[in-house]
């Protein structure tokens, strides 16, 4: 089954609430075509809603069927999150919440994730030093594209379930 890309629109209503909708499109176009499509479709949906079309994002779906440890564990709970804060070299904080965190990764007598665990350390290192890919090293960034460089904290927290981005 071929993966499709998505344009995700976020809508704001008069109560200040937001909701999203997504439109799938094939993967065969150039990036500029998706931007053109997304802008055009935003105009079309704007004409049929009373709320504000707040944003449009291109979501590139990735085939993850090759994961080998992706099973459901009985005590998993998406309201138990790994709460991470990183910063750029300029000190801009970036928060990342990972739902359904493995509670066994929490250090004893602490809310902090155990950095001696290889899985925790590999994630933290990937976030702040990047991942080797064919074209170089891809380092996660803030919204302006500045590399994340440092960890501020990595700990267990609790969040109401829902969409996290």
């Amino acid at each position: 089954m071929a993966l499709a890309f998505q344009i995700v629109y976020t809508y704001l209503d008069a109560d200040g609430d937001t909701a999203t909708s997504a439109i799938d499109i094939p993967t065969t176009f150039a990036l500029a075509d998706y931007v053109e499509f997304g802008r055009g479709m935003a105009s079309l949906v704007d004409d049929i809603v009373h709320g504000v079309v707040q944003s449009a994002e291109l979501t590139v779906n990735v085939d993850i069927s090759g994961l080998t440890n992706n099973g459901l564990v009985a005590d998993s709970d998406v309201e138990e999150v790994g709460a991470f804060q990183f910063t750029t070299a300029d000190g801009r904080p970036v928060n990342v919440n990972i739902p359904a965190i493995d509670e066994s990764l929490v250090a004893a007598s602490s809310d902090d994730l155990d950095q001696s665990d290889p899985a925790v350390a590999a994630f933290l290192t990937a976030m702040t030093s990047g991942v080797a890919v064919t074209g170089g090293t891809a380092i996660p960034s803030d919204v302006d594209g500045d590399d994340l460089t440092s960890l501020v904290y990595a700990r267990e927290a609790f969040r109401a379930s829902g969409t996290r981005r």
Partner: protein
Amino acid sequence: MSPDLLAILIDWLSSGVTRTYAELVEILPEREKPRAFLIQQELKQRGMVQPVIRFENGNVVHEIVPVVQNGGE
């Protein structure tokens, strides 16, 4: 990082051999192990190492590559 721990790590890195994260955890004193990533981060910020995450046959490889210092004896 304490001077004693820094001295241990400088000695550990002095061979210039690429190490694994597991090896870093192994040489740390017990009380320092839960903050092993922050120690790796400090070594990186001091310009002593470059951590590397790559994938090999679907497995995660986490290495710590010593940075060769120019001008040393």
